[in-house]
């Protein structure tokens, strides 16, 4: 979060500096304004993040389960909350046929878990348990707070950037009159930062994210004592290849599997490592299977 505010301060103060070099006003209004708005943005994202994310996916809360599948989901969430030792999260259902799930919220006592209808249709009870366990792993690690804020911030930056782009193109002609090479270079760098702003935020998000997925998988295995069920759920989710239409780019890193058509998630390598929101599915599955076989081996050796 500090990185985010600093980045915005750079954007603002950079503008002031360029302006000042050109003989403009001496006081860094823009910098202060940008830094303040960034701080406000962080606070706002923290306050409204979970609502925004849920709203953007069109999820409805499951308060009164009617069908068997809904009842099973409510039960499974209850069970896993007991296993994880956290208060029961609120449950939401996303009307989408592609299997996916995510968790959001501020802390353990205010958390939400959303799953798509596709997931309910695809998974059996054990697999659903594994998926919910994974999401509760995120809840228990407090990943949800950070990830939800990042989701809200990525959206905010995109919005601000688009607005700024429009104002800048209007005032361009006046600026480039007597720009020295230093100013030109600074200006170029500053403009570039604006262009790449969403990317920088995204990279920030990704850096925190990928290791957490392995951790949440491991915690799911700890809660259910059944890593093979989660492995088979992940394999099923992976096989259903259609992108989750209801989940937009901003919330992608919240999900159990990358909802955006899996461009990078299937491959390994430097580029994929930097840009994927999730570690390669094959790696996650093989780690879970490793846990599962280790457990089977232990059970076989233990005196019955």
């Amino acid at each position, binding site marked *: 979060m500090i990185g985010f505010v600093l980045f915005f301060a750079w954007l603002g103060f950079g503008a002031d500096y360029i302006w000042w070099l050109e003989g403009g006003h001496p006081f860094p209004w823009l910098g202060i304004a940008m830094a303040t708005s960034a701080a406000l943005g962080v606070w706002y994202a923290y306050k409204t993040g979970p609502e925004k994310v849920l709203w953007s996916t069109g999820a409805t809360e499951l308060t009164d389960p009617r069908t*068997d599948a809904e*009842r*099973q989901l409510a*039960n*499974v969430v*209850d*069970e*896993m909350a*007991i*296993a*994880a*030792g956290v208060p029961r999260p609120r449950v939401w259902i996303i009307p989408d046929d592609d299997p996916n799930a995510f968790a959001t919220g501020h802390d353990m006592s205010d958390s939400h878990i959303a799953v798509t209808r596709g997931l309910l*249709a695809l998974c*059996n*009870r054990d697999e659903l348990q594994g998926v919910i366990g994974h999401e509760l792993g995120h809840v228990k690690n407090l990943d949800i707070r950070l990830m939800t804020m990042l989701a809200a911030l990525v959206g905010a930056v995109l919005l601000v950037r688009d607005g700024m782009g429009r104002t800048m193109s209007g005032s361009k002609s006046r600026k480039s009159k007597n720009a020295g090479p230093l100013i030109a270079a600074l200006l170029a760098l500053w403009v570039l930062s604006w262009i790449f702003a969403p990317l920088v935020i995204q990279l920030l998000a990704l850096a925190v994210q990928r290791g957490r997925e392995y951790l949440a998988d491991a915690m799911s295995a*700890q*809660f259910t*004592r059944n890593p093979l069920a989660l492995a088979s759920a992940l394999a099923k989710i992976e096989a259903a290849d259609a992108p989750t239409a209801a989940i937009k780019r901003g919330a992608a890193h919240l999900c159990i599997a990358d909802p955006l058509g899996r461009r990078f998630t299937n491959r390994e390598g430097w580029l994929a490592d930097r840009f994927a929101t999730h570690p390669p599915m094959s790696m996650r599955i093989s780690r879970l299977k490793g846990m599962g076989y280790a457990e089977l081996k232990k059970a076989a050796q233990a005196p019955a």
Partner: protein
Amino acid sequence: MWVLLVLVVLVGLWVVSAYNGLVSLKNQAANAFKQIDVQLKRRHDLIPNLVNAVKGAMDFEKSTLEAVVNARNVAMKAEGVKQVSQAENALSGALSRLLVTVERYPQLKATGNIGQLQEELASTENRIAFARQLYNDTATQYNTKQQQFPTTLVAGLAHAERTDLWEIEDQAERAVPQVDLSSR
């Protein structure tokens, strides 16, 4: 002189954090133990409803239902950890026999009630199992912590004592009944 003072402060800080860590684990374990109680109570409350829901459809299996009701009544009266765990294990056994019986009559599954009953029973048993698991995990963590060096030095100060794990004594209970609940 200064080095000594710094050392004393550091040791003091460590004692405080180790003490607090132990107390926090102790309370977590106590809370997890209460959770088992909560779930057992929930099962007791649920059974009359469940039995009523299937009574009509299961006239021919009266004894199985009666066994469940009796086991529940015994379990509700039980006191003390040993008695409670024995009575609850008996109730689990009766419930799993009920589930197996239901499985034997596929035509029963056609009625909506039975499918719901299976889901509720499976969920209830899972809740109890997960509550136990959480308690055992937390208690193990607590026990390990107070025995490990150097935390063991402050264990007496924090009144830390070994807590017992919730064990399953009954051999039959250990063998999990294989019930196919996948409706898909």
